[in-house]
């Protein structure tokens, strides 16, 4: 019982971490969240005094890359925060218990902490056949509904839970949906990315624990501190972009010089994320730094906006697959052709008019007559109405 009420700090001390490690971690998270030093003090205070938060962690249709991500976090304590600070009562991937035992723990925790626990969802929920994702004999949807009922807030971890990721890509064979599409009524935070950066995950959790409210979210439910700027606006290759110096193929001279990957289809200009600021794997690098364009993994339905290695959008659903520019150019050519044909036919059909030999160059008299008749009718209508009004006023008199 007592272990449940331990603070994160106590837990760390028991594990043999130093206070110095702890303070470093608080400073790191505070910095990422853009807090002032008073804010950092608040974090230190909260982690030392507040009991850890109960968390239920559900895994549905996913590849577990989000869990993998935080296990490879930059600061050792970033990983710890997820495992220790929050008291992780149920995570079918990480917990030691399994089978009936595990399910029993989950049920008990949900009962004891009803209305107080945070539900973390990793993966999307298929609404097609339950066979697409079934856990302990129950469909993902059933499991989700059960855990969502008693949750205080829901954190949708990663692109799967936030917008469906690759299994949601056209034609979405399992009819899978992200959390915010199948649930409303409680706050849902979309911690986007495939996977999200571990430090971002830790930052969100620390924020909630410290301030006891959700961080400010954008219209897609993403925390603004981490998803407020584009990769492109923080990318170190941006000067090459503005200079129009683009890599033309992955093995050319320009790639060696580290020019911008825009031409190679880099989706940094489309993508709100902090990869270029926080970076990955102990802040070593991020995709663009290692020479590959951003694929836009923190944006909804990014898989559907093919192709990965070009900016020019593909057009689907008209029988042919082609880039919009090819179709546009073809349409323009067809239009030009049509215009030429039209010009030729005009010279034949309208030769009299062109040569000024039309005897009757008169205006369209039929339309003129029709218009006159219409006006006549309108005048009659008004006259009728007037006489009716006159009659009525006579009667009332």
């Amino acid at each position, binding site marked *: 019982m007592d272990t449940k009420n331990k603070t994160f700090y106590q837990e760390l001390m028991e594990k043999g971490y130093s206070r110095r490690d702890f303070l470093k971690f608080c400073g790191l998270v505070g910095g990422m969240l853009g807090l002032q030093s008073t804010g950092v003090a608040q974090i230190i205070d909260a982690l030392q005094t507040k009991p850890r938060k109960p968390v239920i962690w559900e895994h549905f249709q996913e590849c577990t890359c989000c869990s993998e991500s935080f296990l490879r976090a930059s600061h050792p304590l970033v990983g710890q925060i997820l495992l220790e600070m929050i008291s992780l009562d149920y995570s079918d991937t990480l917990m030691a218990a399994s089978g009936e035992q595990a399910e029993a723990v989950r049920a008990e925790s949900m009962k004891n902490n009803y209305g107080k626990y945070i539900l973390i969802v990793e993966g999307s929920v298929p609404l097609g056949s339950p066979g697409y994702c079934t856990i302990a004999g129950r469909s993902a949807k059933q499991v989700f509904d059960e855990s969502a009922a008693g949750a205080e807030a829901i954190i949708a971890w990663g692109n799967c839970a936030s917008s469906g990721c690759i299994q949601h890509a056209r034609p979405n064979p399992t009819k899978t949906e992200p959390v915010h599409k199948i649930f409303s009524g409680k706050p849902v935070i979309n911690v986007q990315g495939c996977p999200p950066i571990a430090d971002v995950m830790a930052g969100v959790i620390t924020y909630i624990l410290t301030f006891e409210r959700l961080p400010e979210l954008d219209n897609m439910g993403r925390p603004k501190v981490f998803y407020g700027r584009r990769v492109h606006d923080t990318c170190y290759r941006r000067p090459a972009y503005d200079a129009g*110096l683009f890599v033309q193929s992955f093995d050319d001279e320009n790639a060696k010089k580290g020019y911008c990957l825009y*031409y190679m289809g880099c989706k940094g200009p489309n993508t709100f994320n902090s990869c270029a600021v926080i970076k990955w794997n102990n802040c070593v690098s991020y995709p663009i730094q290692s020479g590959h364009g951003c694929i836009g993994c923190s944006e909804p339905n990014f898989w559907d906006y093919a192709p990965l290695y070009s900016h020019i959008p593909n057009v689907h659903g008209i029988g042919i697959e082609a880039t*919009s520019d090819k179709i546009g150019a073809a349409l323009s050519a067809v*239009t030009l052709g049509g215009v030429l044909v039209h010009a030729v036919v005009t010279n034949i059909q309208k030769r009299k*008019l062109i040569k000024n030999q039309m005897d009757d*160059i008169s*205006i369209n008299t039929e*339309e003129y007559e029709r218009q006159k008749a219409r006006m006549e009718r309108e005048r009659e209508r008004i006259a009728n109405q007037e006489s009716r009004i006159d009659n009525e006023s006579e009667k009332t008199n």
Partner: protein
Amino acid sequence: MISRKPALREVYVWQLPVRIFHWVNAFTITVLIVTGFIIGDPPAIMHGTAPEFNYWFGWVRLAHFIAAFIFVINLLVRIYWAFAGNVFARWNNFIPLTRKQINGIFETIKVDVLLLTPKPVYDIGHNSLAAFTYFGLLLVSIVQIVTGFAMFSASSNAWYAPYFEDLLISMNGFFPVRNIHHILMWFFVLFVIVHVYLVFYHDYIERNGVASSMIGGWKFINDKVVEQFLSEEKENERLEVDRKIEQSELKEDINA
């Protein structure tokens, strides 16, 4: 020498604001298409020098944004003029609400698109079909402006940028918005091809001076067409007066 003396009248059709709008619009759309195309699919202009000595792609984007602002302001002025201008500039030209306009659209398709008869359709201002396509152009322009400003919000700290950023995010972010913006560019390209051709076409067969009318504002119109127009205008005025009288009488009756 071949010559002829038709019964024509000069009519002042396009007022100065309309003409200015037209050419500013043409110019900015051209710039927006060219620079937009370069932004979407940049040519390999590699100076081989380091980034710090170069900014050409930045200038192209800047040109796109400046043209965009002129395009928007110009359009706003034109929308104002749709309520303040003469009958040929008025908003109701562009939305086919009357039977006459709807008939006019079919008539124009018959005569000028399918070329079924050698007889021309005469209009003083826009013909009904053309006017309707300009309404379509307005709608596409609005979509282009909204998607453009939504994207622009990410590189701007103007007071309105946060609103457009919220809008961008609500529209599912850059991916769909950029694609719409890109694909609609082709609509403008097609429009320009057809529009320019039709000006040539009309001037060629009807010789009413459409092409130069966008410079000076005047057109040569068949006498009878002008007569008809004036008589219709008079009729409409009379009907309007009649309607007003009718209404005021109704009111008096109710009061009595």
